[in-house]
């Protein structure tokens, strides 16, 4: 049976749904289908991609509406701007939600569902992708290396699938949201150039302010940090043409990407800075993070409510499990 009628009703512990099976959603679905404890993965989305993915995933996969009921957790991997309504529908049916969106509007809208999620005893994991997502987990992990966190600075390079590339393009023309001295500061995207050193072979790249939600998520986990910023790498053409519609068709699967997290703070009274990062194809890493977050939801390891990964996961076991899926982090040793 492949229709969604088989999945409607109360959430079943072994059933996961994936809404949007592009480059990121397909990876998340693949990871869920191979996980112990997941009996069925319901795939939903436009076009013929869900059917193609179902054929490659085998018996565990079904085509249907992941929001129709029956799924205990739903991974939202559709385009930015679609996640809040979908999450609302999912939690009304008692399902946990894992969102991969990196749009500020989606992140703020999902966090606003916190009370609704708590009242239903379900979790909404916000920003469970490469950045935000792995970047937030790394920030939490590195924060344990200092006694007090003063500043967190994130940078990212690369895009996942076409939807991610379009969001990347929009972000550079949007307004950034950074935390500075206890207040939110919004500045024009494409400004604030800084050279960021990413793990090899990406290397050093100029990064700029952009409409990224990382600071919104990290501020909740680090309310006392004086500065939290996020930037994204861009070349001259991308900066110059950011205000125009995309002139090139995005790469269908994305190419290599990287993230970098710098945490500045005090250790034994001395000001220190630690830098960690990761390289991967963003869609692959984002799918792994989203799939793992969904499995943690199914295992009851994520508390009810809406929050980013920095607030709700223990970073060490999360990073260990991600490494088993080939997503590994690196640390920079030397003067930055």
């Amino acid at each position: 049976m492949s229709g969604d009628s088989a999945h409607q009703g109360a959430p079943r512990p072994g059933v996961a749904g994936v809404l949007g099976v592009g480059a990121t959603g397909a990876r998340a679905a693949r990871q869920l289908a191979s996980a112990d404890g997941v009996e069925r993965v319901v795939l939903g989305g436009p076009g013929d991609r869900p059917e193609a993915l179902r054929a490659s995933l085998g018996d565990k996969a079904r085509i249907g509406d992941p929001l129709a009921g029956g799924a205990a957790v739903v991974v939202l991997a559709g385009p930015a701007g679609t996640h809040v309504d979908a999450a609302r529908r999912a939690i009304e049916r008692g399902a946990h939600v894992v969102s991969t969106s990196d749009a500020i509007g989606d992140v703020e809208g999902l966090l606003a569902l916190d009370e609704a999620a708590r009242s239903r005893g379900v979790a909404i994991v916000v920003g469970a992708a490469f950045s935000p997502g792995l970047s937030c987990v790394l920030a939490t992990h590195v924060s344990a290396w200092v006694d007090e966190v003063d500043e967190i600075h994130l940078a990212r390079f690369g895009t996942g699938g076409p939807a991610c590339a379009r969001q990347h393009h929009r972000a550079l023309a949007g307004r950034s949201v950074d935390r500075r001295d206890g207040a939110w500061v919004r500045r024009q995207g494409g400004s604030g150039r800084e050279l960021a050193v990413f793990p090899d072979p990406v290397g050093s790249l100029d990064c700029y302010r952009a409409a990224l939600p990382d600071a919104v998520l990290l501020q909740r986990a680090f309310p006392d940090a004086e500065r939290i910023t996020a930037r994204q790498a861009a070349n001259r053409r991308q900066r110059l043409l950011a205000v125009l519609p995309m002139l090139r068709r995005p790469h269908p699967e994305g190419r290599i990407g990287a993230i970098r997290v710098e945490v500045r703070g005090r250790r034994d009274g001395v000001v220190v800075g630690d830098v960690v990062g990761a390289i991967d194809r963003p869609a692959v890493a984002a799918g792994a993070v989203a799939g793992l977050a969904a499995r943690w939801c199914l295992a009851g390891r994520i508390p009810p409510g809406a929050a980013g990964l920095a607030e709700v996961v223990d970073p060490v076991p999360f990073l260990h499990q991600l490494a088993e899926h080939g997503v590994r982090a690196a640390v920079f040793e030397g003067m930055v």
Partner: protein
Amino acid sequence: MTLLRRAIAALGIAALIAAGLRIRGTGGTPPQTGGWRELRGPDLR
């Protein structure tokens, strides 16, 4: 009319200079020492 043409030309030149300034330059100097290594062992406890 002449004044309008000159104003448009001036704005065009200013826009070109602004675009040039915006896309040129670099955000800093890459580190001369150090490097990346995989996060493992004691780093992941």
